[in-house]
């Protein structure tokens, strides 16, 4: 196989994945209102992004929601995994099956069914943020469970018994022996939860209060409207998030690569 073709193919796929975002990022630094029109350099989009109260509240709201739901999901999912791991096989299987439902289910169905239960049947007001939070935790917690479970299985289970023999209380043994061993799973569960919550559209749109928006619901509505200053401020938002994601992901990977080298 000729080597050149491989790299051409890889580059073309990368181009497909990145060209739209890069072009959008370039145009976010101009005063153009549509892509393709060449205009002057301008930071107005970035100024609008950080000074328009509506945009600022929407961004802060999205991140607060993501962090709160990821935190709750991580606590619930981690405790659930520990409980399930130490339960009888049958109980553990039953929990795993229930846990799998939101994972394979479509977000549209999850969001719709939670809305019916909470809003239509139990009459919980959407303005209480309870349906929204419940929806996001339901979306995230199963992935925490799935991230923690393999760590429990790989864990050296003898250490817990040794700690008890040496006089530790079960709670202390759990905190000081079990928890550090499953921590990588807990952390990746938390990170995955945050991303899932940040990216969600369907559960949010069905369960959110009318006056609250996340980035996803806001962007989707904005593309339908025709307010140009909002539209181009969102280009700036896309650029900021793009750069943030690149920095975080590359930093994590370079660290992992370094760790590999040291072995």
């Amino acid at each position, binding site marked *: 196989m000729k080597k050149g073709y*491989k790299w051409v*193919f*890889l580059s073309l*796929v*990368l181009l*497909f*994945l990145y060209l*739209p*975002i890069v072009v*959008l990022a370039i145009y976010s630094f101009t005063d153009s209102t549509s*892509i393709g029109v060449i205009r002057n350099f301008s930071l107005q989009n970035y100024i609008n992004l950080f000074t328009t109260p509506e945009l600022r509240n929407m961004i802060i709201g999205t991140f607060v929601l993501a962090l709160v739901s990821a935190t709750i999901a991580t606590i*619930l999912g981690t*405790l*659930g995994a520990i*409980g*399930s791991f*130490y*339960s009888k096989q049958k*109980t553990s299987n039953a*929990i*795993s099956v*229930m846990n799998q439902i939101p*994972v394979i*289910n*479509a*977000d549209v*169905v999850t969001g719709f*069914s939670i809305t*019916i*239960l909470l809003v239509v049947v139990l009459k919980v007001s959407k303005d209480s943020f309870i349906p929204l939070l*419940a929806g996001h*935790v*339901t979306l995230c*917690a199963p*992935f925490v469970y*799935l*991230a923690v*479970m*393999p760590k429990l299985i790989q864990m050296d289970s003898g250490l817990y018994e040794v700690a008890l023999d040496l006089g530790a209380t*079960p*709670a202390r043994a759990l905190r000081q022996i079990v928890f550090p061993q499953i921590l990588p799973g807990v952390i*990746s569960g938390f990170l*995955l939860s945050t991303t899932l919550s*940040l990216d969600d*559209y369907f559960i949010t749109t*069905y369960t959110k209060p009318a006056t609250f928006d996340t*980035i*996803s619901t806001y*962007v*989707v509505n904005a*593309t339908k409207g025709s307010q140009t200053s909002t539209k181009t401020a969102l*280009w700036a*938002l*896309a650029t900021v*998030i793009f750069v943030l*994601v*690149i920095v*975080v*992901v590359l930093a994590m*990977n370079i660290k992992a690569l370094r760790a590999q080298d040291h072995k």
Partner: protein
Amino acid sequence: MRIHFTRKNLGIPYVLFLLIFVVMPLLVLFYFAFTNGSGEFTLTNLTDFFTNPNTLGTLFYSFAIAATTTFFCLILAYPVAYFLATSKLKARSVIIMLFVLPMWINFSLRITALKEILTLIQGNLAFYPFANSVIGMTYDFLPFMILPIYTAIEKLDPALIEAAKDLGADDKETFLRITLPLSLPGVISGIAMVFLPSMTNYVVLDMLYNSTFIMGSLIGSYFAADNWNGGSMIALILLLIICIFTLLTTTKEEDNKDGGNLL
């Protein structure tokens, strides 16, 4: 030792959570799907779906969009995953990161970027609604196809390839008889991660001005009309499709093992 502290009891909050927010909503969905607005048992929601040419058309259109998207994701993702997983480059783990990194950027912002580019190329998005939707979905879901295939090929024991070559197989034969069959579990989980979301993520269609419905859009429109009974039936039908699809794509030994590889 404190009396009520046992490790398995730690799972109780999560089990209660799953019962309330996962199992209960599904039961309510069932109830609503088989009743009418005044709570009487009825099958009309079901028969309506299968006798109305519009809803049946939506079902077929969803399958068409999902199948085409899955096809394009597969023919783009497989070579990328194969070239990278078999390359001897040390930096390949960083390069594969570049391919999956877009999945951490909010999808609505990425589709906005794609929309601007497509508008620039085509002038007006209305001419190719089907093609644009498939491009949008492929753009959105491609990383989810690349990652599992890459993982499957990378795990492959190089000794098998060497053995095949020692036994006289050429490159093509080695690929067809060793690499391809052994990478199939990755392909199957990739298909599962692309096909189902392509049937339901109607926002991609909305944002790219494709006004034809897919299954997800039906739920969205029933939601907008407060028609909980009709919407529940669609959700239930989708759930059935998801269940069948999951049973078909779950290989026994792979069960959940790959669940944690998203991060």
